[in-house]
């Protein structure tokens, strides 16, 4: 039971604010705030991304708008990943039910991490077994794996989360440049100026 989460008011506001940010409809009803994800998918994806880059003293994936990034790109350059996302989200839910008897979004952070790590482990195992089977049968595996392997999905959402958190805000994530502020990147960047004062020993300091 300890893997169940008490939904704090703060968390609830965070999640719905993030969802509403992408919404064109003011009030919540059955219509999804997302372009591609359903309401439930959006919540599951938000929860997964938040485990990949959790909030701590700095904002995490949800506050940075990573779900908005992924949703937006799935309408464009990442169109080809749509099926993989639908299947992957389902596999996360299935694993969550199997391991803890609850939906992924109902678990606490430790439970969610357990589910994701298990998916990573299982998929690596599947890939290894598939390679062995193919080698033993003397076959050549043609075509890309169709996304049945959950490691494919986790690796995909992991890289997309990193892109949506650390990438340029113009793509829908990194809201307010939160990750760049966290890293200490100067903004606006100072250009066209030599930072070193060559009249001083050691170049002086900025």
């Amino acid at each position, binding site marked *: 039971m300890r893997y169940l989460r008490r939904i704090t008011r703060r968390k609830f506001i965070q999640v719905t604010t993030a969802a509403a940010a992408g919404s064109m409809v003011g009030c919540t009803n059955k219509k999804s705030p997302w372009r591609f994800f359903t309401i439930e998918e959006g919540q599951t994806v938000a929860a997964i991304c938040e*485990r*990949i*880059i*959790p909030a*701590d003293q*700095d904002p*995490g994936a949800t506050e940075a708008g990573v779900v908005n990034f992924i949703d937006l*790109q799935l309408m*464009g*350059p*990442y169109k080809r990943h749509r099926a993989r996302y639908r299947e992957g989200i389902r596999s996360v839910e299935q694993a969550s039910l199997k391991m803890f008897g609850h939906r992924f979004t109902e678990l606490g952070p430790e439970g969610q*991490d357990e589910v994701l790590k298990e998916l990573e482990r299982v998929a690596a195992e599947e890939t290894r077994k598939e*390679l062995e089977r*193919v*080698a033993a049968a003397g076959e*050549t*595996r*043609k*075509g*890309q794996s169709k996304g049945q392997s959950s490691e494919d999905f986790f690796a995909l959402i*992991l*890289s997309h*989360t*990193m*892109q949506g958190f*650390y*990438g*340029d805000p*113009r*793509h829908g994530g990194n809201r307010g440049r939160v*990750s*760049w502020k*966290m*890293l*200490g*990147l*100067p903004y606006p*960047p*100072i*250009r*066209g*100026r*030599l*930072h*070193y004062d*060559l009249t001083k020993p050691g*170049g002086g300091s*900025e």
Partner: protein
Amino acid sequence: MALKHVNAVVVGAGAGGGIVAKELAEAGLSVVLLERGKWYSAFDCRKDDLRNQRTSVLGCGFGPDDERYRRVVVDAEGNERSVLPSEAAYSNNAACVGGGTFSYGAQAWRYMEKDFRMRSTYGAVEGSTLEDWPISYADLEPHYEKAEWEIGVSGDDSKNPFHAPRKKPLPMPPQPPGREHEILRPAAERLGLHPFDIPMLRNTVPFNGRPPCMRCRWCVGFACEVDAKNGTHNTVIPKALASGNCVLRAECVAKEILSDDRGRVTGVAYFDSQDRLHVQSADLVVVSCGATETARLLLNSRSKLFPDGLGNRSDWVGRNLQGHTYAGANGLFDYDVYDDLGPGASIAISDFNHGNPGLVGGGILCNEFIRLPYQFTSMTPTTLPHWGSAHKDFMRQAYRRCIAVQGPAQEMPVLEARVQVDPRVKDHWGIPVARLSGSNHPHTLEVARFLMSKSEAWLKEAGATATWPRPPHAGLSGGQHQAGTCRMGNDPKTSVVNRHCQVHDVDNLFVVDASVHVTNGGFNPVLTIMAVAYYASAHLVEEWRGTRFRS
């Protein structure tokens, strides 16, 4: 309507093609320069960290596009799949006027003398087609100089005791050193190494009518906002056009090179930007599409005389695909090392290019270009989790405290590392796509791991509190340093072009790009591509003034 006949068609407006077009045009030949990509400029500088030529997850910044292009890659187990240009396995360089030179990091290296004589120096390597070039460094020296002064190189190699001989110094001074350079230099000296400034195809003072670099953090993979980065698009190609003898047709995709039954090429069939097919007839054809696309074009140009592709009686077209196998290390420091001064890469050592005990060749070691945040997410130590709080925490505390050092291990060429054309998959224009297969030679990985250990040692000496390796990639090479697929040689049975880049068997067909490299040095190849282009052009012009390629 038939196009007017010209003296020369140059296919590909990159490092090689741009130079050839200008040399031929200024010598009075009429030239059509075809380029499948667009002509971008400084105004196309977007600083988009997810859509550029180095990080292409949302698409390649400067071509080719995912909509119309594909390749097929075959992995070590024989599994094949179709890949998009935005995927790493596609092994992309660029598709635009200027080619890779439009957005590269612009390292401007002369190869060393031994790089042209790898077989004589080191002997045969089992399982490799390691061989000498049919030309020497001395043949290329005046042409390296020409590239340095005409395209524009900054630097100072006087502190590099290993550099090949030069007659003239570089035209521009090096950039003032940044913080990483200042940290790494004394450490290298204490280790008995010989650090110096990386030579760069980048203005450090006003040159050629364009300003110096403004030290921004978006260099390698990006267009230069102030046009300080030198490539063929802002030097020789405008000169070619200004001569009045050259037209540039951008967004034109070559379909095949046409030839007659006397074994001479007659022109190039290509699709324009509206997908209409044209035939441009010419007295001679120069292919400068880069190692992958040049091989593909030749293989797709079949005829009765050349059933396996133009110039391919030897079955060596497309083979010996090389690039560079990078390896190095990251170091974490307990103080801020980040100064936000681009391009970032600044210091190099050439101590490990040759003469490494028990190893064939080697490579330079340099500090890396500025790592943008998303790039840094995959450079964290493998001993730490690659997601979750630990990863985020590492990003936060280490981003401004990491220095990366690495180098391009010179590869042992392998006959089975190759470009073919796929029997099934075609691109938007119905042209069979390139099919890449093979992998690196084991000794290449040994050399790369040696460079990795030297990188770690350097960072440790510099005071890194922790270092972790960046091991080499074991699969097929190629990518931005792709080379080797139309090898230069004296024997038509084991090479594709002769010492003048002229295709054996086909007197009026030339290959002028890195395809002709027999071996690829332990250095970024672009200045050598440019030198070979000047060298081949000089002979081409002389031949033109003589026989005009009439048989």
